[in-house]
């Protein structure tokens, strides 16, 4: 067993867990933050994406112990109180989700993409950057549209809409 302490969505947490505990299981089962999902076991689908010290990572592919001392943000911590993050709002407005299972990972990845690319974001870049996130429902069309719209909203600029 190992004691892990980290900041999750701005809250300091500390728990004793098995050394083999994955970060995603720590979030879902030890902290009850079930918005982060598990869709595969080979690190490809991206349903488990969270931000670790501000960067998008796959929480299924690291141990909780590796995140000891880090700051983690999950989908539950993205909105500012009752106010949705612009990306959350854009996913709703542009119908960027259907079954909702990949959505938390998509939104966390989308936020990371916007943070890294800012005003350089265009449709081709968004599509390439979504390499690590699989959606089976939407054909990505409206996800791409939502990320571009949110980038525009957030002042990142929007060179080209996904129409």
């Amino acid at each position, binding site marked *: 067993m*190992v004691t892990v302490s980290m900041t999750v969505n701005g809250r300091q947490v500390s728990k004793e867990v*098995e*050394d*083999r505990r*994955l970060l995603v299981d720590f979030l879902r089962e030890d902290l009850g933050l079930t918005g982060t999902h598990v869709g595969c*076991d*080979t*690190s*490809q689908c*991206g349903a488990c*994406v969270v931000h*670790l010290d501000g*960067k*998008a*990572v*796959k929480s*299924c*592919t*690291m*141990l909780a*112990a*590796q995140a*000891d001392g880090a700051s983690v943000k999950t989908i539950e911590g993205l909105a500012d109180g009752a106010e949705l993050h612009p990306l959350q709002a854009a996913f709703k407005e542009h119908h960027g989700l259907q079954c909702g299972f990949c959505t938390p990972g998509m939104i966390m*990845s989308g936020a*990371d*993409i916007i943070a*890294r690319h800012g005003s350089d974001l265009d449709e081709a870049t968004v599509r390439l*950057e979504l*390499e*690590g*996130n699989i959606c089976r429902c939407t054909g990505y069309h409206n996800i791409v549209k939502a990320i571009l719209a949110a980038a525009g909203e957030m002042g990142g600029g929007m060179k080209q809409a996904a129409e």
Partner: protein
Amino acid sequence: MYSLSYRRASSVEEARRLFKEASDAAYLAGGHTLLPAMKQRLAAHDVLVDLGAIADMKGIGVSGDGLTIGGGVTHAEVAGSQEVKGAIPSLAALAGSIGDAQVRHRGTLGGSIANNDPAADYPAAALALAATIRTDGREIAADDFFTALYETALEEGEIVTGVSFRIPETAGYAKFRNPASRYPMAGVFVARHKDGTVRVAVTGAGNEGVFRWSEAEQALSGNFAAEALAGLSVDPDMMMGDIHGSPEYRANLVAVMARRALGSLGSAEAII
């Protein structure tokens, strides 16, 4: 995943000690090869020694003709580094094409090199850029480092602390991705060095892992351009074959990617 003990090392020496104390330890760097294998119970280790907190393995620096990158530097850091972009832009571009954004945030140069996955990108750059692999005990020339599929010259417990790449006059990288895994099915790194020598290294395709394509190197030493490779091909018997690509197809891809690498000097082209 089987039961295990997690140890975080704060120095290379501590990592070595923790490794030695365990019966079947493994080093944990980015974890993007090791952890999926362990999750699927295809691999088991009693102790994982995390190298992620070792400050000495983090730096990037240029000195003379060499660019040295710490073993613990992530692919995203390499891709975004002004030093790397300035010294060897195609290496930065290669790093920016590895896996996906989330993998690049965690995966490290040392982990990629030490694993010698036949479908990894970095080994091609290491060979073509005449790199020196620095470990906690010695320096190994890239030509001597990659010994077989998933095998390297590393001794038990030896750690890749960094890699020094020779800064070329010009270089380029092109790869064709496996449509499922998105690892390269053929990736070719071409470099012309300042002493006029040419190196061409191929990853993803060879049935013994990364290799130097000497015929291409000879052909390119006179004329470092795609047309010099006209008609040149690798032997399909040396290629891997699977449901995604036969040896013949991979042989074709090697030739095509080599030409495209020459067409994208100073950058990288990834066909997906």
